[in-house]
Each structure stands twice: as structure tokens, then as C-alpha cells.
């Protein structure tokens, strides 16, 4: 497998501009002769589709929701980073880059991460020009705040709804191109397979989710921006329809899947309340700017939190990490919440929660100031839990939130299959083993607005793209493959529901491939997932038929893929015998419980190649060695 990252030579600061100079251009009158498929209309897909269409390509855009505006990116609350240094607190592109590399525990590619920081400023300009209503100061200039893991205020935000506003910006840019006839929009369409002809990605197979029809789409390049796979855990903060299917089916066609075990657990979510629960709700991490995290010092202390005096509270983050306090990165905050709960100090009915307390902040700044900053989050919390966070501390617990792993891509965001580009959360790049807050939105938009439009052009200008038609046997094969899977799902006709399988898989994943992992647990997980998968194919019940709207059928296909991906995640976690970022191997931690990296042996991207050997999943590991030319590898410390 060829894992050439194609990183341009030269100083870090100049790599991208040099690359842009070298990139081949497609003449304007030729662009309209080329079709590009973009799967996904989140921040990455939406911005890519709009920008490619503006350039003149014919874009075919797909999403599973009923409107592009509903992609999961809409739910992001906290904000988006950029190195504008508007607050004059010393921020620079280098610092944003450095924080991102360090935050990711030195498991991302320097060149990509630097480019992300470089593009960040332009993203804000672009969004503001589109009319995205970011928060402003009284002087009329943009406001900033600080966010988990950063010591400067570099986060731009639109109240608690930054993702929504940025997505509407990209969606509106898309709709403008739909109006111009440059984007052909296909909502309620699910990509089920990738079509490869002469070694190049040339099309996709979709199912029309309303009519059930299996359809063929052809193009000169495919951009996959289908989001992350956090829903493998069943309970997560992801939207219910987020899934791995598009990426997984590409993987099964030969695209390498990189670092699948890197899963971010978000520290500030509303805890689980019961087994009917369908998802978890995230409370923006910005809450940690003012909220103080604590548990009662005494195990099993079930007094009302307001009755527990100051000296009987354990402010564990402030005590253990004086420099960052409550603002330590997510992996550190999540892990420590688990530790105190494991030690029996957890609060609430399940004992799986810690307090996030605004008492001091309200005393210091007044209720009005706090409500201006976090009002809608407080309301959301109260609506879900029926408790009032102005009067008593919130209860929070970590939940699965984001996946750093994804399809492997080179510097051009091209997978190892020529013509298949991958953007946003669907690719593995930029965040290493841990993503800092407010950086996913930045990456999605950087990929979509400022990288994909150039690199796809470069590919098209250079590729030897022969004529193909939808009758090509690669199309027949892929369409048949999609149909076969659907038929197979109905044929099982068992008596256990798709949801039950999903929930069981999620439990295995959370227990053994979650916040912390061990060799023993991972081996057990692999066995259990295999058994569950076998049971699925013998006993799942898919109601209804395939010829019309059928949500259970959609979910069955996605759970089938999660059952395969789950095994690979455990395998990757087992193979990575070190702790890094969000990936804590219990065998590798310091006496104080901090993650111990092993740069000598594991400073690489794990890229897995799929092979189907008589129905058994066979995954082969390939390594892209990470080289650090410009930063010195240091142990992370937030003390």
C-alpha cells in the first residue's frame, strides 16, 4: 500500500504557498466539463461543494437528511478557533499550530496541522462576509473567548450555536450555487458504495431513502465528507443519523482507515439517566471557563451539593493541574472524571457524574453576566434534567463526542485511492490523538473552502480520465453489492431488533474501547464483537420493505458496518501499545495516572488495509512514520 504523504519540501511556513504555486490549474472553460461528487453537506462537504461550484465544476451533492442545512455540524456549540490575535494576547499562527500538535500528543502530521492554522484566519473572514453573526464587542469588532486547552482567547463564537451559524453560511453558499445550476442537490440519499474504474474513484452508488431506488452516479472525482463514527458507541453526542457507512464502504474498496482507535470523549455532557436513552447531550466546553468542577471529598456523601461546605469539596482539576485548572484538555478532564467516579466519589443517582459549579462565577459576575454567556445552555440543561443550574451545580459526565480516526489522506486530502478525497471529520488528519476544542469546525471549513477546491483541481488537471459510462461492470458490481446487502438483511428475519444490537455493541465499546483500555479488555472486546456480529447476521429483524421510506433498514445497514468497524477499533487500540492523547492504555501510565507515550515505537499513523478472506475481515497494518522536523517532542504537561 502506498502511503506517500506528498508533503512539499521547504520551511513549514512556506509549504502550502509553495504547493499552491506548483499545483496544476484547470482552465475555466474546462472546469465545466468536469463533474465532482461531494458526499455530505456538513461544514466540510457544504463548503467544498459551494467552493468547487463557484470555480465552475459541476457538483453533485448528497446527504441523508431532508435538507443540507440539517447536517450534524449544525449541533456544534462552542466555537471555532483562528489565530487572528484580535485580543492582542500574543497569539500567532505558530502558536495555534503548536497547541494543536501538542494537544494531539504528537500524533498528527506537522505539515497538515500547520496549514490548518494558516487557513484559520481566512475562514473567519469568509464566514463574516457570508453574514455569519459572530458575537461582537460593544465597539463593533468581533469577540473572542478562550476554550479548553488554550491559554489565549482565539475562539470565535455565535452564542452557543456556532456550528449552526457556520453551517447555515456554507448551506446558503451552496443554495446560491444550486440556484446557478452548478450544484445538483440530492437530499435523503445515502451513499452505499464507491465505484472504482482503472484504479480511480469514478462514482458512487446511493439509495434514495424515499423511493428505495438504488442509483448510480458518475464523476471525475469523489469528495467524501460524511462525518465521524462516534455512533459506534450507540450513546454519544452525535446526531442519530451520523454513521460510518460511506467511509467504511470506501475502506472495503481499498481506502486505508487510519487511527480508528482515536476517539475523543467530551468531559461536559449530561449524564445517562436510563436505558431508553437514545443519545447524550453535550454542554459546551466553554462552560469550563467559569464553572468549577468538583466532587464531595467523602465517598457516598449524598447531601445536596449546596449543603456541602467548601472544605469538604474536592476540586480535583484545580488541585492536580494548577496551571490550567478546569481548562485542561478534554482527555485529561474526562479521564479524571472517570477516576473520581471509579473511586466512589461520583454524584447523582448513578454515581457516574461530577459537579460543574457556577456558584462562584455568579457571585463574582452576577447572574445576568453568566446568563448572557451561557443562558441557552443553562436552559437546555434545565429542560433535560429538570434542575436549575443557577441554583445548584450541574451534573456532568464524559461522553463520546468526536473521532480523530478516519480514512487516510495525503497532504492533498486524497486517500490512497486516486480521485477519492476525504474532508472534515471523515479523514484522519490534523488532530492526532486528541482534538482541541473549537478545532473541528476550523478543520472542516479549512478542508472545504481552502484545500479541496485546489487539490481536486490539481488531480483533475493531471489525471488521465478516460471516458466511462454507468454501464461499466464496476458500476454493475457496486450496485449489485448494495442490493445484495439489503436483501441479505431482510433475509435474516430473526427476532432481535437493530437497536438492541447497536446498544450491545455500544456497551462493549464503552466498557473496553472507551476512556481507558487494557490488553485484556481489548482482546475480550474483539471476541465479543465477533460473536455479536455473527448473531446479528443470524438473528436481526428488519421490518418493512426496501421499496419505500424505512428507517430501520437504514439503521440495519449502518449497524452492520459499525459491527465491523468496532472490531478494527479494538484491534488498532490493542496494537498501539502506548498511551497517547485520548488513547489511554492502562499498562502505560505514570504513577500519577498520566498517559505515557512511546515515541520511539509508536510515532506513526496506523493505516489499516481491508481484505475480505472468505467472509472473515482481514486487516493489515501499514505505517506512515511521523517526522517532527519543526517541533520538539515533549511530554505534555498541564501542571
Amino acid at each position, binding site marked *: 500500500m502506498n502511503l506517500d504523504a506528498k508533503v512539499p519540501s521547504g520551511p513549514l511556513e512556506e509549504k502550502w504557498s509553495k504547493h499552491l504555486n506548483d499545483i496544476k490549474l484547470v482552465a475555466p472553460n474546462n472546469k465545466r466539463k468536469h463533474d465532482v461528487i461531494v458526499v455530505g453537506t456538513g461544514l466540510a462537504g457544504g*463548503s467544498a461543494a*459551494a467552493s468547487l461550484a*463557484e470555480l465552475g465544476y459541476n457538483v453533485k451533492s448528497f446527504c441523508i*437528511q*431532508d*435538507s443540507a*442545512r*440539517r447536517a*450534524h455540524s*449544525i*449541533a456544534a456549540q462552542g466555537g471555532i478557533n483562528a489565530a*487572528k490575535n*484580535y485580543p492582542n494576547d500574543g497569539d500567532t499562527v505558530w502558536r495555534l499550530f503548536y497547541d494543536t500538535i501538542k494537544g494531539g500528543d504528537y500524533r498528527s502530521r506537522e505539515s497538515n496541522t500547520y496549514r490548518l492554522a494558516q487557513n484559520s484566519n*481566512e475562514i473567519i*473572514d*469568509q464566514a*463574516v*462576509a*457570508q*453574514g455569519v*453573526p*459572530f*458575537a*461582537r*464587542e460593544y465597539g*463593533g*469588532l*468581533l469577540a473572542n473567548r478562550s476554550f479548553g486547552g488554550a491559554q489565549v482567547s482565539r475562539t470565535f463564537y*455565535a*452564542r452557543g*450555536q456556532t456550528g*449552526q*451559524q457556520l453551517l447555515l453560511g456554507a448551506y*446558503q*453558499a451552496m*443554495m*446560491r450555487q*444550486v*440556484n446557478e445550476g452548478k450544484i445538483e*442537490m440530492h437530499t435523503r440519499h445515502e451513499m452505499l458504495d464507491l465505484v472504482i474504474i482503472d484504479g480511480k474513484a469514478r462514482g458512487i452508488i446511493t439509495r434514495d431513502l424515499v423511493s428505495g431506488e438504488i442509483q448510480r452516479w458518475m464523476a471525475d472525482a469523489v469528495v467524501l465528507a460524511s462525518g465521524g463514527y462516534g455512533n459506534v458507541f450507540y450513546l454519544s453526542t452525535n*446526531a442519530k*443519523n451520523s454513521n460510518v457507512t460511506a467511509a467504511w464502504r470506501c475502506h472495503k474498496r481499498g481506502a486505508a482507515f487510519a487511527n480508528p482507535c482515536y476517539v475523543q470523549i467530551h468531559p461536559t455532557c449530561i449524564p445517562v439517566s*436510563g436505558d*431508553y436513552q437514545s443519545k447524550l*447531550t453535550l454542554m459546551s466546553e466553554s462552560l469550563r471557563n467559569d464553572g468549577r468542577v468538583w466532587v464531595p471529598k467523602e465517598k457516598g456523601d449524598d447531601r445536596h451539593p449546596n449543603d456541602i461546605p467548601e472544605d469538604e469539596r474536592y476540586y480535583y482539576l484545580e488541585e492536580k493541574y494548577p496551571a490550567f485548572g478546569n481548562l485542561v484538555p478534554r482527555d485529561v478532564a474526562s479521564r479524571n472524571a472517570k477516576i473520581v467516579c471509579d473511586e466512589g466519589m461520583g454524584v447523582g443517582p448513578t454515581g457516574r457524574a461530577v459537579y460543574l459549579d457556577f456558584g462562584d462565577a455568579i457571585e463574582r459576575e452576577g447572574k445576568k453576566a453568566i446568563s448572557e454567556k451561557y443562558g441557552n445552555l443553562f436552559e*437546555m440543561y434545565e*429542560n*433535560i434534567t*429538570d434542575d436549575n443550574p443557577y441554583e445548584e451545580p450541574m451534573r456532568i459526565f464524559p461522553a463520546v463526542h468526536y473521532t480523530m480516526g478516519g480514512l487516510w489522506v495525503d497532504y492533498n486530502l486524497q486517500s490512497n485511492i486516486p480521485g477519492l478525497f476525504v474532508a472534515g471529520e471523515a479523514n484522519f488528519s490534523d488532530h492526532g490523538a486528541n482534538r482541541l476544542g473549537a478545532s473541528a469546525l476550523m478543520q472542516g471549513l479549512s478542508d472545504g*473552502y481552502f484545500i479541496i477546491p485546489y487539490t481536486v483541481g490539481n488531480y483533475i488537471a493531471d489525471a488521465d480520465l478516460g471516458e466511462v459510462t454507468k454501464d461499466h461492470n464496476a458500476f454493475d458490481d457496486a450496485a449489485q453489492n448494495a442490493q445484495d446487502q439489503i436483501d441479505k438483511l431482510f433475509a435474516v428475519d430473526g*427476532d432481535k431488533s437493530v*437497536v438492541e444490537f447497536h446498544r450491545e455493541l455500544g456497551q462493549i465499546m464503552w466498557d473496553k474501547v472507551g476512556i481507558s483500555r487494557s490488553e485484556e479488555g481489548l482482546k475480550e472486546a474483539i471476541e465479543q464483537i465477533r460473536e455479536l456480529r455473527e448473531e446479528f447476521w443470524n438473528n436481526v*429483524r428488519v*421490518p*418493512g420493505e426496501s421499496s*419505500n*421510506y*424505512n*428507517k*430501520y433498514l437504514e439503521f440495519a445497514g449502518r449497524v452492520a458496518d459499525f459491527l465491523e468497524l468496532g472490531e478494527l477499533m479494538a484491534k488498532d487500540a490493542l496494537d498501539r501499545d502506548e498511551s497517547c492523547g485520548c488513547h489511554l492504555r492502562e499498562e502505560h501510565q505514570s504513577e500519577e495516572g498520566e498517559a505515557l507515550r512511546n515515541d520511539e515505537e509508536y510515532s506513526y499513523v496506523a493505516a489499516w488495509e481491508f481484505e475480505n478472506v472468505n467472509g472473515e475481515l482481514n486487516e493489515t497494518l501499514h505505517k506512515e512514520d511521523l517526522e517532527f522536523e519543526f517541533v520538539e517532542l515533549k511530554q505534555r504537561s498541564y501542571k
Partner: protein
Amino acid sequence: MSDTFTVHLKIWRQAGPDQPGKLVDYTLDKVNEHMSFLEMLDVLNEEIVAEGKEEPIEFDYDCREGICGSCNLMINGQAHGPKAMTCSCQLHMRNFSDGDTIVIEPFRAKAFPVIKDLVVDRSAFDRIVEAGGYVSVKTGSAPDANSIPIDKEVADTAFDYATCIGCGACVAACPNSSASLFTGAKLAHLNRLPQGEPERKKRTVAMVKQMEEEGFGDCSNFAECEAVCPKGISISAIAEMRRNYMKAALAGTEA
């Protein structure tokens, strides 16, 4: 954990767009006050699947956090149910009591045809935005973000209107099935910003025209839309839309 209770449900079942629909009775006795309304339907669906006699109930959802605008249920005749400023997905069963009968129907409007059961087609909203609900700016050509200061108040008001999630409750609640609150909200967001100013007239005329073409009714100030809007979009957006439309029409602006 709290005790469970029982609700009686009357749910709209419709096999497809051209099929007749009807309300079907269900009883669910595993309801818990912390469940969201959609989780309650999930539990019912699991029972239906387990019995295997009929197909599960189809309804739209995605984020389940009140932000994507996917969910759209008429609950006891109210769009998104009884709780103000709340989407169906964020409505919790603690708002109901043991023994309640709850009627669940799709958002009805000529411009929102039923796809199946409670799922409707709201693509008319996309076409209204497509007609002009954007600022025409090319990627990469934007000036520095701080080069145009905007009054905090203007920015905040623009934001308030921009929070519309496109759910369609306003249409479902309106006796005329008007889409004026949705359209007005987008216009009130973009038209008041300096970025949106140059296209203000053209945008207003184009979006209003499209709204009419989609088969939405006129607004006759019932204000039902504002009452059900989960994001609290103010009806003043509609007045603003009218003023802008009149000005543009007088100036002879065409879409």
C-alpha cells in the same frame, strides 16, 4: 429512578404520499418522566417491531438537541407540543401525566406533502433560500473580518433571527399555512447586516415570490407562528419583510 406511567396514543399512519391516512390507537405503559417525546416513540417502535405485525412508525429526527430542525410533530394539535420554545425532540414526558391521551400528527400544509406516517417533505424551504437567502460572496475573496465593525445590537438582532432552524412549525401552526415567519427570519437576518445590504431588495422580492410559488398561504397576522416557534423568532420579522418588499416593489426591483 422514577416510576413508569401509561399514555394512550393516537398516531397518524399513512403508507405513502398517495395513500389515505388515519389515526391509529396505541397504548404504551413504559413511559418515564425523563424520556424525551421521541424516545417515547422509540420505545413504542421497539414494541411494534417485536410484535412484528405492522411496520414501525416513521418520524423525522436527527440531532435530538433542538437544533437541526428535523423533528416535526403535531402533538395534541400543537406544533412541537405543549411546551413553549421547545422542539419535539426536547419535549420531555414529564410534561404529560398518567392516563393522558396524546394525538400525534405530521406538520400539515399543502407545501409539505406527507412522505410516510409523520414524515413530510419540507424541501420548499430550501427553494425559498435558494431564491436569494444568501450573501453572494466567493470563497477566498473576503476582506479582513474586522474591517467592517457592526454594532453589537445589530449583530445580536441579526443573530436572533438567524437562529431559525427551518423546522416548519410556523407553517403547520398557521391557519393559512404561511411561510412568512421562516422567510421573514432569513430576510431579517441578512438584510440588516452591511454584508447583506447590497442584495437586500432583490433578495426580498425573490424570496417572497418563491414562497408564493411553493403554495404557502398569505400571512394575515394570526401570530400562531410566533407562539409555536421553538426559537422564539419574533413576528416583527414579517413586518420588516413587508416594509422591505413594499420599498423594493416601489423601486421596481425584480427577482
